[in-house]
Structures are given as C-alpha cells and as structure tokens.
C-alpha cells in the first residue's frame, strides 16, 4: 500500500473520531430524567441516540457509495441521513410532549433562548431541569446529527475505498471505531447535556483529546491490517 493512502486512511479515521466526539456533545441528551419530563432533550442516552442516527447515516452512505466514489458526496449523504433522523425524532418528541403530557418545550440551562430570544424560565416547572426540545436545542441537535453522520460516513468511505475493504467489512469496521469514540464522549458528558449553550459543552476538549488518541491508534491498526492484506479484504 502506498504511503499517501495510509496517511489518507489515518487522517479520515481521526477526523471521523473527532466528529463523533463533537456530535455526541452537540446532541441534546436528556437521559432517563427526560423520559419523565424532568430534563431537556431527547429521552435516551448519548450512545443510544448517537448510534441510531449514525446507523441511518451509514445505511444511506453505503447506498450512495454504490453510485458514486466521490468522497464529499458519500460523506454528505451520510450526514444528511443522520440529520433527518435526529430532526424527525426531535419534532415528534415535541408533539408527544405537548399533546401526550401537556408539557411546553423549555430549556433549563439558559433563561432566554439564545437564538429566538424567547423567555424560558417562566414556562419551566419548578424542581425540574426543563423539558421538551426548544428551538436552540433543536438547532444544536441538528448540528450534532450532521457531525456524527459525517464522521461515520468518512470512516466508512476511508475503509471502503482507500483500505479496499468490502462493504460489509467497512461497515462493521467503521462502526467499531465509531462506538468507542461515542462512548468516551458519553463518559465525558456524564448524563445529560443540552447542546452548545450548556456549561458542560466546555468539557469538549478533554473528550476530543482522548478521541484523537483512540482513533489514531485504531486507525494505525486498520492501516496495518489493510497493508498486510493488500486489498484482499
């Protein structure tokens, strides 16, 4: 295998890992409290919603990779797929909160929505940390889905077209590198996060540093495997 290809694989895998970490921090994750309307965000864990979005993106990216071998198009298709998934989920969750539980979407971390300037505090139930998916959180979630889907699709593309793995191998390999990155980001978040306006978002660099090292090492392992096999896989 040529050195340029090796470096390309490494770079794409590392960028994918960093994007996975960034995406996990941008997604509005309410965890278990959100299922009771006690916290803002999507009512599930970071890893769970991240995997759901990225799997949708990976499916689209793998479909598109059979039509074209343009890096930007494959990666963007994956990113758009993940964004559509997360946007539909957030909109429908809001509908469920409003009509099923009578709860108004409100952020618990900021008194005023930074984007639409809507007041938040008067609408919040006391003793809770917000509920639903208000607009600033929706925007953050869209960015998070985009970033995570882009990361997954980049890794898939690198393994498919530069390491010359088969689609199935590339899919499971991309997922296997993606999962540790998302999980380490989830450990960094510890529970719930609302998005880029959340104070916890400032912890992002720690997670990025860890993700960088982990994806770099995983990328080196993949490069060694691919170069020993020489395109058999």
């Amino acid at each position, binding site marked *: 295998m040529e050195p340029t290809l090796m470096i390309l694989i490494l770079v794409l895998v590392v960028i994918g890992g960093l994007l996975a970490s960034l995406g996990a921090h941008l997604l509005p994750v309410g965890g278990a409290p959100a299922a009771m309307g006690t916290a803002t965000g999507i009512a599930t*864990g*970071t*890893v769970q919603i991240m995997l759901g979005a990225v799997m949708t993106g990976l499916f689209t990216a793998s479909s598109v990779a059979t039509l074209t071998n343009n890096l930007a198009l494959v990666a963007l298709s994956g990113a758009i797929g993940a964004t559509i998934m997360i946007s539909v989920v957030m909109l429908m969750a809001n509908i469920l909160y409003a009509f099923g539980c009578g709860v108004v979407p409100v952020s618990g971390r900021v008194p005023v929505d930074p984007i639409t300037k809507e007041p938040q505090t008067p609408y919040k139930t006391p003793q809770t940390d917000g509920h639903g998916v208000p607009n600033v959180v929706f925007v953050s979630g869209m960015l998070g889905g985009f970033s995570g889907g882009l990361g997954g699709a980049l890794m898939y593309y690198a393994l498919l077209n530069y390491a010359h793995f*088969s689609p*199935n*191998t590339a899919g*499971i*390999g991309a*997922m*296997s*590198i*993606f*999962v*540790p990155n998302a*999980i*380490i980001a*989830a*450990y*960094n*978040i*510890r*529970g719930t996060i609302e998005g880029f306006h959340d104070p916890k978002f400032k912890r992002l660099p*720690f*997670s990025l*540093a*860890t993700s960088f*090292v*982990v994806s770099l*090492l*995983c990328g080196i*392992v*993949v490069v*060694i*495997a*691919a170069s*020993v*096999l020489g395109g*058999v*896989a």
Partner: protein
Amino acid sequence: MTVTPAAVEEEAPAEKKLDFSFPPGETELGIIAGIISAVVVTLAALPAVIKGAALIFAILWGMDSVRKTSKYGLGTGVPSIGVLAIGYGVIGTLMGLALAEYGRAGQFYPGVLVGVLVMGGIGLISGIMSNHEKLVAMKIPHLERAMMELGMTGTLIILLECSIVTGSLNFGAVLEDVIETGVIALMFIFSAFAIFHPYNACLGPDERRERTRMVAVEIGGLICILLGFAQIVIGTSPYGILDGVSLVVFGAVIWIVFFRMFIRACFKEAYATVGTGLIKTLG
C-alpha cells in the same frame, strides 16, 4: 382504596448457603480464562466444543471486568462498556487475522495474539485517558486495568467465534463465511450482551457475583447453539457435520443447566417468591 395486606412477609428467609460458587477471585479468573482462551484461539484445528468452552471462559472474564467497573457508576449505564469492548474486539480481530500468517505452523496461529495484545494496549491507553484527572476524569478505581482486560477479552471472544464458525483463522475464509454473510452482526451484538447483560440484569444492592456469573455462562451456551447452527450451514469444518452438532448439544446442555440454576437461585434468594399477591399497603 382497600387492599388486603399481602400474605407474603410471613417469615424472614433464613440465611441461605450459596449453591453455586466458582472458586477463583477476579484476578485468578482473569489469568486462568486468559491463558485458556489464548491457547485455544491459536490452535484453530481443535474441535468446536473445546473452542466453545474457551469462549465461555473468555465471556466470564469479560463479565467480571464489566462488573468491577460498573459498580462505581459509569454515568451512561452498564451496556456502553460492553459495546466498547466488542468494538475494540472487532478491530483487534481484523488485525489479528491479518497477522495470522506470520509464524504459522500448520493450524497453529500464534500471530493472532498480536491483535489481542495491541487491543489490550489501546484499551489501557483509553483507560488511562478516561481516568486521568486533567482529561475525562471518570475517577473509577482500576478503570485502566478493566479497559485493558476488556480490549483483550473482546478480541479473544470475536476471534474464538470466527474460529468456531470457519474452522480456521485464514482471513479469506473468515471474510467469506463470517463477514460477507453478516454473521459478524450476530457475533458483535451477542458477545456484547454476553459481557454486559449479566451485570445489567442482576444490578442492585443485593447483587451476588456467583449469581451474575450463571447468567454469563447461560448466554455463552446460547451463543454456542447459534454458532453451531451457523457452522452446520456454512459447512467448512474439517470434522464434518458432527462438529457443529456437538457444539449445539454442548450449548444446549450448558444453557439448560445454568438457566435452571439461575432461576432456582433467584427463587430461593428473593425476599419472597409468591405465586401471586397484592402489594403491601402503606402504613
């Protein structure tokens, strides 16, 4: 609302003796299971039953590592760390299989162990970084060691499963029979469950290690059944169909024995096991 008090709390259950205890402590079990599964994984010509037994040991080791880490609370639930282990395991398997041809003698593949060791190293590094005060700062005692062990067990489990299904550790064979057919998806998720489900299912203040381990062995039996069928369908074993059938029988026996043992232990150790009954009214 009138609800008659339940007739459940008639007598406090007496101290019960443990009816399943597996002697080694965490460290000894790690060493024993690691050596057994590492030796078996290099000898690809062994019959599938022996590989299945080694697989169960590897699962026990992984479950113990998950248990000692998750006791302190991870913040994202127990399952995440099991999936992390298997994610590392798939990467390590790719590397181990790529290096399998080096130092190979017949059906003896010491080269695959490089993948195991490398993933142990990556697990150690990610453990150090996750636990470091200036980085993710999870502050979980011995997280470094547990993550290293999880990287190693994950790789050993996936390698053993590939070896069971294909009967060899040739990358071409594994690619054709395991990855292209999609059996890798089953391996990925079932092995992850074998590692994290026992502790997740038995979580609580009165969790007991022996009981938790029964679940791990029982899931190991289920994996053996499914992989045995997969091996029969793919039909690449050098021992013919008997190899797969014996693995299915082995898995079924293990599953029945340990599932019954677990359910009996639960019925016996619960606060009370009652056919039916109403809940205690307050006050």
